């Protein structure tokens, strides 16, 4: 019965008091959020705890969810906050979330060219191998775009940055990833 319902419809019923239905949302989002945590944090134990915290916070705050909007960016936003806070605690000096010139005035260093299917496949391979080499600021939009299949607008809502900044970060992230991949092949 609930399988046919959208996330938003289930969330609305949870808001109305059918708390048990929250289990359905957990079932739907646990694998996705675990994958997001694994790729973003590279720490399975922390990831599991943080995903659990995400669900607790989602349940506590579900009445702030506007059911006329999509549920997915809303819960990913909570997860993003949890993950970023965890990263900040762990590596405060290395993480660069505090200030970003791209949110100040987004601009691309060079125009992007359309990637062919081959380039796209190469990029996905690089993503699997070298994602941990990227700064979290660039890692996160790549995960959301390529692994979680979100569009720019959804990523903009999750990270609370302009849509144009999402494009800039993705462009830069792809460039860095390609460079890392090329350097890696040269070393081998």
């Amino acid at each position, binding site marked *: 019965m609930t399988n046919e319902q959208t996330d938003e419809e289930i969330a609305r019923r*949870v808001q109305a008091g059918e708390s048990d239905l929250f289990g359905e949302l957990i079932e739907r989002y646990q694998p996705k959020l675990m994958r997001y945590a694994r790729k973003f944090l590279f720490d399975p134990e922390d990831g599991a705890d943080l995903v659990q915290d995400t669900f607790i916070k989602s349940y*506590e*705050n579900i*009445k*702030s969810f506007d059911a006329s909007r999509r549920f997915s960016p809303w819960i990913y936003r909570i997860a993003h906050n949890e993950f970023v806070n965890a990263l900040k605690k762990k590596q405060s000096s290395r993480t660069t979330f505090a200030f970003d010139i791209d949110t100040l*005035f987004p601009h691309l260093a060079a125009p992007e060219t359309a990637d062919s299917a081959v380039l796209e496949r190469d990029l996905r391979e690089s993503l699997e191998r070298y994602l941990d080499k990227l700064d979290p600021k660039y890692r996160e939009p790549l995960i959301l775009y390529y692994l979680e299949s979100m569009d720019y607008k959804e990523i*903009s809502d999750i990270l609370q940055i302009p849509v144009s900044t999402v494009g800039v970060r993705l462009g830069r992230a792809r460039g860095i990833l390609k460079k890392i991949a090329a350097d890696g092949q040269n070393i081998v």
Partner: protein
Amino acid sequence: MKAISRGEIHMKPRWHFILLSALYITGAFIVFLTLLYIVSLGVFFLRDSGELFAPSLGGRGWFSLLLSLPWLLILLTLLFAGILELLVRRYAFVYKKPLLMSVFGILAIIFLGGFFIAPLHHVMMLSARKGQLPPPLMLLYRGPLRMPPPSDTYHGEIVTLTSSGFVMADEDHGTTTVTITPQTRLPYGENFTTGERVVVIGDSGATGTVQAFGIREIDEYPEQ
């Protein structure tokens, strides 16, 4: 999920979020009003001293304006603009725009509003002079936030016309004799009358007479 079923975790009620939003909006509104007040006060100070009109006298006038800017008020403006940005950044209509654009947007609205509200301070200052305001506000309008004028800039009310210029009195009832030469810049002509308020840029000679580089009348606020 077990913790939810056992009732160990509770949903926050809707009013909690409504209250939170109301607090954010109220906070943002208060900061916005504070910003309007600060900016309009700065505009008023510059206009009242005539420095706002000094750029019509050329590069030296611009320099005089720069030296007279109320830097404390400008710092407060930037501080409160930052606070306002932080308070409204959680809303999609703000975070969807580049930070620079939203900060400039906020400042543009504030400055535009500041120019419109500035005449209010004229009324406040008149009340302060009559001793009709509470002491902290009296102090505010008397001057600690105003920058002293640069050493070559004078402003006051013309009390006497002379054959070579005029004598003007400042707020502290001190007088300054001003000489007009053929080189003096007079963007609005030389038909000065007593009672008129002017800003003068010029160099003071050994006798204390100021040889005017430029003179510009100060546009008065309409009488209340």
